């Protein structure tokens, strides 16, 4: 950017983004001045160095070995709990102690050890202290030899992790029920199990100044758009931050608009969902210690799709998607707003019988409709929030107290009309029709926005609110892909799997939105239905 443009922008920036100017000062580049330190050759010096840099932790242990056949002294060093100690003693300590082989001192003793004596599956030779420390923290064991300024890394880390089980947040009736776990190795294996393609790429990199977590960027070479993969990698590389705990946090960090409430990436624990996404040309990001994969680019429609849509008949899938997306989504956002519009504005829109009933139930209520709605909605959200965090045993009680007693009492105390209670109940239920929970908070927040507009302009206000929300959603992009893609008319063919789910024969191609390299996913013309097929008509 030229200076002139900078000047032109500065006035505006100081006006609106004063607080952001400070953030944009680049962090000091320490790496440039760092000198790689070679490992000390003496065992004791090495021990001292490690103890000093790690601060004499209780879980750091050293084991000295003096093999009878060798002249040197060896030292094994590892962090307790991170390494497989059985493997260490069985395949490293025991062979060293019992070896009869006399090694030639002229060759590299550590490499010779790795090749001839130690029986672990994976090892590596390192030279610098930084590497040694990193490997130690990654949960690997180090084997030092006295008098040599290098060490042998024995890859025997073994973290504690859950076993693979059903994802709790994304339960389905049909389909595989295995979900990702917090261990990156397991996740990688699960993915490989699904896609046995040689072109499945699992590019790993490190993230976090202090956490140094492993990140895997998974995509299928030959399908995924290469510049987009590079952009994702570039973004992750340029993220210079202490620690990232979960992919959800990562997705928040990667967003350019900080005030955006819509999820611009899809996090999923389901293996089938992620592998399907990869096959559409998307990119999945796995993070160590996070049980979910983050899929980019994500579209608005993705949050209304469920795996079951593809495991059942397109007609059924369309019906249920309609339920979720058209009815569930709109009711949860707009029903309270419509209540406000109908009770607070000149009547006559809806049936006079209902208006009569509403008028009768409104008689004697202390609050005006807007306050009544806000009061009940906030109460509803408090109950939802409370029941989410509470242990299950107590949670049931909250629901009963909140739902039954409070609602009934509010009506009897004339704090709310009984139609309002129904409205709130419907809102609470339709909240949950969203298929991906990442979209839920946005919907819960938007209902207040709609109520606000409805309070001012009635039904017209709801139309205005819908316009602005649509425009806002329409302006979002996820890695260059417009958020409303597939639903808006850039590629007509992609509409086949949006609100309506067409037959798989219409969906033989990958979404063109993602600009995939290989477009076809099913050559339906090759399909031969023989007489014994499922469908004999």
């Amino acid at each position, binding site marked *: 950017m030229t200076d002139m443009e900078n000047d032109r922008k500065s006035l505006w920036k100081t006006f609106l983004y004063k607080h952001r100017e400070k953030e944009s000062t680049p962090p000091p580049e320490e790496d440039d001045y760092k000198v790689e330190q070679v490992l000390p050759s003496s065992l004791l010096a090495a021990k001292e160095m490690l103890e000093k840099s790690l601060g004499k932790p209780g879980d750091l242990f050293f084991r000295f070995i003096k093999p009878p056949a060798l002249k040197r002294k060896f030292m094994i060093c590892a962090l307790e709990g991170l390494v497989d100690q059985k493997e260490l003693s069985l395949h490293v300590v025991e062979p060293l102690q019992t070896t009869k082989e006399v090694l030639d001192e002229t060759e590299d003793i550590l490499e010779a050890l790795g090749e001839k004596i130690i029986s672990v599956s994976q090892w590596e030779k390192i030279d610098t202290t930084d590497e040694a420390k990193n490997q130690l923290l990654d949960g690997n064991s180090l084997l030092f030899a006295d008098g040599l300024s290098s060490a042998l890394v024995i890859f025997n880390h073994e973290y504690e992790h859950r076993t693979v089980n059903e994802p709790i947040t994304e339960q389905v009736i049909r389909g595989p029920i295995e979900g990702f776990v917090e261990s990156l190795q397991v996740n990688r294996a699960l993915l490989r199990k699904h896609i046995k393609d040689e072109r499945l790429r699992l590019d790993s990199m490190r993230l976090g100044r202090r956490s140094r977590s492993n990140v895997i960027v998974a995509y299928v070479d030959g399908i995924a758009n290469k510049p987009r993969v590079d952009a994702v990698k570039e973004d992750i590389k340029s993220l210079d931050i202490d620690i990232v705990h979960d992919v959800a946090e990562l997705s928040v960090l990667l967003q350019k*608009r900080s005030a955006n409430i819509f999820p611009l990436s899809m996090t999923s624990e389901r293996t089938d969902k992620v592998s399907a996404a990869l096959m559409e040309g998307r990119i999945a990001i796995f993070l160590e210690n996070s049980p979910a994969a983050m899929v980019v680019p994500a579209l608005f429609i993705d949050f209304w799709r469920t795996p079951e849509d593809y495991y059942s008949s397109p007609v059924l899938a369309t019906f249920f998607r309609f339920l979720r997306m058209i009815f569930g989504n709109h009711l949860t956002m707009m029903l309270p707003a419509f209540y406000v519009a109908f009770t607070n504005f000149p009547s006559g829109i809806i049936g*006079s019988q209902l208006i009569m009933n509403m008028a009768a139930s409104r008689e004697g209520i202390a609050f005006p409709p807007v306050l009544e709605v806000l009061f009940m909605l906030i109460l509803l959200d408090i109950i939802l929030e409370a029941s989410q965090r509470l242990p299950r045993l107590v949670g049931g009680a909250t629901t009963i107290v909140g739902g039954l007693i409070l609602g009934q009492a509010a009506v009897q105390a004339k704090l709310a009309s009984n139609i309002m209670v129904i409205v709130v109940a419907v809102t609470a239920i339709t909240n949950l029709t969203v298929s991906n929970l990442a979209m839920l908070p946005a919907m819960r927040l938007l209902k207040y926005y709609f109520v606000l507009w409805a309070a001012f302009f009635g039904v017209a206000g709801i139309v205005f609110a819908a316009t602005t929300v649509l425009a806002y959603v329409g302006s979002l992009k996820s890695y260059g892909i417009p958020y409303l893609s597939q639903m808006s008319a850039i590629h007509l063919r992609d509409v086949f799997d949006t609100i309506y789910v067409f037959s798989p024969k219409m969906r033989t191609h990958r979404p063109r939105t993602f600009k995939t390299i290989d477009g076809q996913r099913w050559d339906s013309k090759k399909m031969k239905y023989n007489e014994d097929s499922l469908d004999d008509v």
Partner: protein
Amino acid sequence: MRSLTFFFIVLLFLLTTGCWDSTAMERRALVMNIGFDVGEEKPLALVLDIHNAKQSDANTMVGPPGALGPAVIAPRTEGTTIDECLEEQRRNMPRRIDFGLASAVVITEDAAREGIFPYLSWIFFHPNVRNNSYVIVTSTDLQKLFTEEARVVEGTMGGALLVSQLMADRKTAALTRVNLWEAYRIQLDGTGSLMVPFVRSQEGRIYYEGSAVFDGDRMIGLLDPDESAFVNIIAEERMPYLFTFDFIPPEVKENGQEDEQVPAVEERQEVQEEQTAEEQVQEDSEEGSSPEKGHLAEGDREPKKEQKQSNGVEGRPEREGKMDVPDEEASRMTLRFYRVQRSYDIEKIGSQQYEANIHVHFTGMLSDANPPQVRYDRDDFDAMNEQAAQALEKKMQAVIEKIQKELKADVLHLGRYVRPIDIREWEAMDWFDVYPEVTINVSVTVRVLGATR
């Protein structure tokens, strides 16, 4: 971020604009019907039919007894203009007047005879009043009409008691229905005369007593229910319709015994009963003797009749079947028409001279009032067609004579068809001067398809 900031600025700005229209529901008086009358002291009177929500069945949280007030309040104010009347209503009403639910505009006969256009145009341009509400003329006092405790199924719920019959059966011929916008249009383009339902309230029941006919915007006369049914059939092709006439079987006629037999038309005297047919069902079965009683329930009882048909062979032996002996020479025959096709053929025969040929084709069946024992053959049906057509034609000519010569009102909306023939001439002439001179020929054909059973 920039656009979001801008958006919040805009939103803040909007929120300062205030909400003018927002009034909580319990602060509004819901007007169910709007009534206009001639004032006693001032020229105009406005009566509003206001529903009391506290009194509604849906109000489950009733307060102390006696605190609820009447179910309907109908305050009456007088003034020189409608706005003045409304202003006074506003002064006296502790709530904001909301016309959103108003389903009917009721005008008293006195007011209607003085001209209704000011009312129509005032309501039409009054925001919030539904333009698809109905226009009704009544001979009953408006306050009595609105507040009288209803004794029908509808109850006070919805306050739409007045129009519930208009809403219940949209197609029946006997009820005249006219919407506000329609009435306004007829006033404005002058292609016809307005015909408005005429109602009377008695002991909590609404009786539809034919229609009020207007010349311009002044009410000039009344058509009885049967006449207005004919007008509705011709003008709007409304159905179903029951028609009773004297039928002479062909073999009797061949014998030459009844040479001068002119089928006498049986007038239906109690059409108003059929309007409140829901009430009538019980009484009918109790009385069950009068031959006409059973014929009349075309409108509301229609579905029941259909059911009976599908039920199969067994009829209703205690009813009309007995009244006619089959071997009598002239039997009284009732036809139930369910389809009518009307065509206007209007020709210009000279300067400002028009000739209208109206052809009406009825399709119907024998109603269940006819003797079930008789089996009719092809010849019988042919004779039936012919005789029914003759009877209908005669009746229609009488009606047309009345509206054209006596009332001089174009309720058949012939003007709408005359207008496009020569629109230059139409713009130059006054249709209502020409209309009484127009030759109107009516021809009727009837096709009876069989018996209902």
